[in-house]
């Protein structure tokens, strides 16, 4: 009884013990918060990394791929059919994307993935990442409803809005072209910057006006010559002259090139290239290509009717959001906004490499059907999904004899991911070694995943060191208290208290500190985790700087995940450290002989 009483009294009267409690509290709190955030990040990351990757991927090690998709899939089916929930053939190849924006050509390296959308949707979440299936929210309010319902299978059709947008900019472009050449033209439009009507992109103009004064001055000067009808019906041109003029200049600068690009020859060339055996690539082909202006490659075959002209091109793309948009801070409001440079309905140009030896470059234009955003910047700033057949054709992967297309990878979704190891083993045995690599998504993204794990482990070690530091603090403070209480220990012993009893006082004192510290740390940590986003907002407001910049992390808010086990371990560990730290002082206290202790400060 006296043990508890004294222990409580010492707790109450020694304010220095508060320091111990606070250090334990802080240690526990940090560990819980950091672990929750790290776990949140890591599970979110895993989800995102997994995102578009199928469970198991069978890949060809060469860019030429493996012939005959059907046959490959049959082999897979035979080997591990019972574990497979779905699979789809894909072609994966690196390439280059270019488009024109604000009078400039923008070129990005990309990874092109030819897919069949229905097949891809079966092996992983695809629809979830497509812009047209999602509502757009701003500050929690839906500003745009989803444009397609989730029941609609993913495909290569434009949404109504995209069609309208496409028709509008096509008409505009034609009109400009006619204005420049003074006569109606009905050939294909060269790749050109998408027109962004002012109402939809209000931020674009100030940028241009403020940052490109020379251009706009010139533009207005040109405008004064009076050739530009300000109120052409159906064309939203108000306040839009700078861009329009710039583009006009751009077009005007090389009308001959544009003319030259529209050649039958080119059409034949690409057709021939696609159909023919790449190994038969002749000298004359090369020579002809060298003569031609590179811009020629961005031209399209002449459409027969206006309807065709406005319709989407044969190649269709889902473009990663990171490739075509950027975020910026509004200079006036400080708000982070997203600028989308290419929208569904726009055309982009792709360059990649065809199969065959030596590999030659191929170019084709296509229409953006949708914007793809998985939240994983690695993917979003890298991937373009393309319709499989068109990509196979462009790269010459279709066997002229059988009509079967070659593929570079088969993505497999498993019924139960636990069997992944076995599936991988069996598939490796089923295919000839060397040419094919079979990996799970985790193995494919191994370095990234293990980086996250290692980061977390190291952080935990460091944080546990912090708690150990708190433990040494307890040790020092306890020693002080024991020394201070030596006389009391002597009194207690003189009154008949046993050494074990005295030791118990200090051990339970340590335990009490641990419990109180770990308890408050636990509650504090969990509350912190719960309100972390509010706290972040508060800190942002206080410091005026964004603490958690969602433009960097792609997370709308800080992800957290509280693992009960981790929390328990942290709390128990902290208590154990507090008790361990009190053992030494407690033993010392117990070892005093009564008289020694009584005479201590006399």
């Amino acid at each position, binding site marked *: 009884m*006296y043990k508890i*009483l004294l222990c409580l009294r010492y707790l109450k009267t020694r304010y220095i013990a508060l320091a111990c409690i606070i250090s334990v509290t802080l240690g526990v709190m940090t560990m819980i918060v950091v672990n929750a955030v790290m776990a949140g990040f890591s599970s979110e990351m895993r989800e995102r990394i997994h995102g578009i990757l199928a469970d198991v991927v069978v890949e060809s090690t060469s860019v030429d791929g493996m012939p005959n998709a059907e046959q490959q899939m049959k082999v897979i089916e035979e080997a591990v059919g019972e574990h497979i929930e779905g699979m789809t053939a894909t072609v994966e190849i690196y390439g280059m994307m270019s488009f024109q924006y604000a009078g400039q050509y923008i070129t990005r390296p990309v990874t092109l993935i030819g897919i069949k959308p229905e097949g891809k949707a079966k092996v992983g979440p695809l629809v979830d990442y497509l812009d047209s299936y999602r509502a757009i929210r701003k500050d929690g309010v839906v500003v745009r409803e989803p444009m397609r319902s989730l029941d609609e299978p993913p495909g290569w059709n434009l949404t109504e809005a995209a069609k309208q947008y496409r028709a509008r900019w096509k008409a505009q472009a034609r009109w400009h072209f006619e204005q420049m050449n003074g006569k109606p033209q009905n050939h294909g439009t060269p790749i050109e910057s998408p027109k962004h009507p002012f109402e939809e992109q209000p931020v674009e103009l100030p940028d241009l006006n403020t940052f490109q004064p020379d251009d706009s001055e010139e533009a207005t000067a040109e405008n004064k010559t009076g050739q530009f009808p300000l109120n052409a019906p159906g064309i939203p041109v108000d306040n839009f002259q700078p861009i329009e003029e710039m583009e006009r200049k751009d077009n005007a600068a090389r009308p001959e090139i544009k003319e030259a690009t529209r050649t039958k020859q080119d059409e034949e060339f690409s057709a021939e290239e696609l159909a023919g055996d790449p190994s038969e690539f002749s000298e004359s082909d090369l020579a002809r290509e060298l003569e031609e202006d590179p811009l020629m490659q961005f031209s399209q075959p002449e459409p027969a009717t206006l309807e065709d002209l406005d319709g989407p091109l044969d190649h269709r793309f889902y473009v990663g959001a990171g490739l075509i948009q950027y975020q910026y801070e509004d200079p006036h409001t400080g708000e982070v906004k997203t600028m989308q440079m290419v929208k569904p309905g726009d055309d982009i140009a792709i360059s990649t490499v065809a199969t065959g030896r030596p590999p030659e470059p191929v170019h084709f234009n296509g229409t953006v059907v949708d914007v793809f955003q998985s939240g994983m910047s690695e993917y979003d700033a890298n991937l373009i999904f393309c319709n499989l057949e068109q990509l196979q054709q462009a790269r010459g992967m279709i066997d002229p004899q059988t009509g079967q297309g070659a593929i570079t990878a088969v993505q497999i979704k498993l019924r139960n991911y636990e069997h992944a190891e076995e599936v991988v083993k069996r598939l490796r045995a089923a295919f000839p070694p060397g040419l094919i690599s079979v990996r799970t998504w985790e193995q494919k993204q191994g370095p990234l995943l293990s980086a996250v794990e290692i980061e977390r482990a190291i952080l935990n070690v460091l944080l546990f060191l912090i708690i150990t530091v708190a433990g040494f603090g307890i040790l020092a403070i306890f020693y002080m208290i024991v020394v201070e209480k030596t006389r*009391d220990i002597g009194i207690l012993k*003189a009154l*008949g208290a046993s050494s074990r009893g005295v030791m118990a006082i200090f051990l339970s004192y340590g335990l009490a500190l641990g419990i109180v510290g770990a308890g408050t740390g636990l509650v504090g940590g969990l509350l912190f985790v719960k309100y972390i986003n509010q706290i972040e907002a508060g800190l942002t407001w206080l410091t005026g700087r964004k603490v958690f910049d969602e433009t960097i992390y792609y997370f709308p808010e800080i992800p957290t995940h509280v693992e009960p086990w981790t929390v328990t371990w942290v709390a128990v560990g902290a208590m154990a450290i507090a008790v361990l730290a009190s053992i030494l002082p407690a033993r010392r206290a117990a070892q005093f002989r009564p008289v020694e202790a*009584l005479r201590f400060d006399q």
Partner: protein
Amino acid sequence: MSSTTSPQETISSPSQYALDNGVTSRLRNDNSQEAEFVKMTDPQVSTIALEKAYRKGQHKVPVLHGVNMSVQAGEFLSIVGQSGSGKSTLLHLMGLLDTPDVGEILFEGQRIDNLSTRTRDTLRNRVFGFIFQFYHLLPEMSVLENVLSPLMIRHGILEYWRRRRELQKQAKDMIAKVGLGHRLRHKPSELSGGEMQRAAIARALVAHPQVLLADEPTGNLDSRTGGEIIDLLNCLNEQQQLTIVMVTHDDLIAQRAHRTVRLDSGLIQPLDDAA
């Protein structure tokens, strides 16, 4: 050595613990001429040839040189001696707060100084009540809690909790007896020296010890307060037949005891003026 151990016989008070045992016979052999006295009065606590020296590195400070002394049950013995003569040391040895270098301490004829630590803890708690020269109250606890502490130590948590009312009443009665009934909740730092001494006495007595060891209970008090304390001790001695061993400088106070011995140069010297 045998010549110096004479004064045990001067007073014989009624003893409930009349035991004939090895101790008395050994003493009888040592001091053959006093054998009959020893035989007729069986001591409650006795020390045999106690030696104690403090060591400080190379230095050895001998304090006791072979103290033979015994106290009868119900006796009020006072020990006088110069400062530094080793009175406190002797009392600590008797109360099992320290261990002698040589010699034995007997309680009711049984050797107790070489018992296990746990048994000695229990003896301290149940048999001896100690009043310290410097009060030694626990500063974090109130008077009541201080007085309760021997009882809390004696009983386990559960038992204490079950009997807390009874025990608290016991403690309160004892505090009332020493005249501190109105200061139950005060901390020692809020009390005067005399009040602290009374609280210490209450603590020493609350567990109904058989022997009270008092180390200068009046040392820091004025003569009147000191007198009150001695009255209290006298009263306890008479009413409850409590054995009291009291250390003091003050000859006047020493005279209130039944018997006085002098500790000098590490030995017990006979006192002519013993009451």
